[in-house]
């Protein structure tokens, strides 16, 4: 019962905050709402017994990514931003809404059609640090190492892009 209650609570909260993200006038609010979403998602991960991922998730998203966002938002000036970013034009809005609705309907349809497959009971797998670590450093060693290269490239890219031209 407790589990179900927790799920519905966090699900609802994450949905609300997600809607805030996409609808907020002020970017700062949007970022902060996303932080809430991330917390809820982390909580859901915990419910799914993915402890390690939940922890990393919190660290990376709530701790790093979103802070970075906030920095940028602040750096580029918030006040001007709020009024200077009206939503897209009406045509885009209408088509966007229709597209999203259709997408949602499709996803729902897929889930409904495939509902039978999801009836199986959950296995007793726990995403502990040890279990995930074993997998990462055995089976996925090479991809794991490659991600470091990716990160390096990302860093360099960001530096190159954001660097002020000397002239």
């Amino acid at each position, binding site marked *: 019962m407790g589990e179900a209650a927790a799920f519905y609570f966090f699900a609802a909260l994450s949905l609300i905050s997600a809607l805030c993200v996409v609808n907020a006038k002020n*970017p700062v609010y949007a970022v902060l709402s996303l932080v809430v979403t991330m917390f809820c998602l982390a909580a*859901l991960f915990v419910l799914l017994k993915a402890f390690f991922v939940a922890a990393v998730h919190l660290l990376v998203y709530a701790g790093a990514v979103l802070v970075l966002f906030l920095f940028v938002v602040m750096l580029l000036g918030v006040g001007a931003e709020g009024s200077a970013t009206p*939503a897209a034009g009406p045509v885009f809005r209408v088509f966007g809404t229709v597209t999203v609705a259709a997408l949602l309907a499709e996803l729902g349809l897929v889930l409904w059609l495939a509902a039978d497959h*999801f009836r199986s009971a959950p296995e*007793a797998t726990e995403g502990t640090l040890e279990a995930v670590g074993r997998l990462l450093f055995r089976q996925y060693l090479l991809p794991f190492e490659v991600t470091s290269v990716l990160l390096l490239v990302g860093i360099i*890219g960001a530096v190159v892009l954001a660097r*002020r031209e000397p002239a």
Partner: protein
Amino acid sequence: MIGLHHYLVLSAILFAAGVYGILSRRNVLLILLSVELMLNAANLSFIAFSRYLGDLGGQVFVFFTMVVAACEVTVGLAVAILLYRTRGSLDTDQADWLKG
């Protein structure tokens, strides 16, 4: 007991919300935020499947997704700064250099 499809439905809605965000906002930062939302919706499905199929590979994948997302954010934000610097605004409609 919470079924797998609960998570999947939630993931779908979050994903759709992200798409909506991308389509309806013109601020680069907000678009990037929406992308984050979509990525995390996908992450949620991964974790849920991983749990219900008993395969930890899904969690590893989420890990990789996060790396990618992190990179994407750094580069994306750098681009946003660059955009702001050159065009004086974060409005994507201003950034139409590639107009044919």
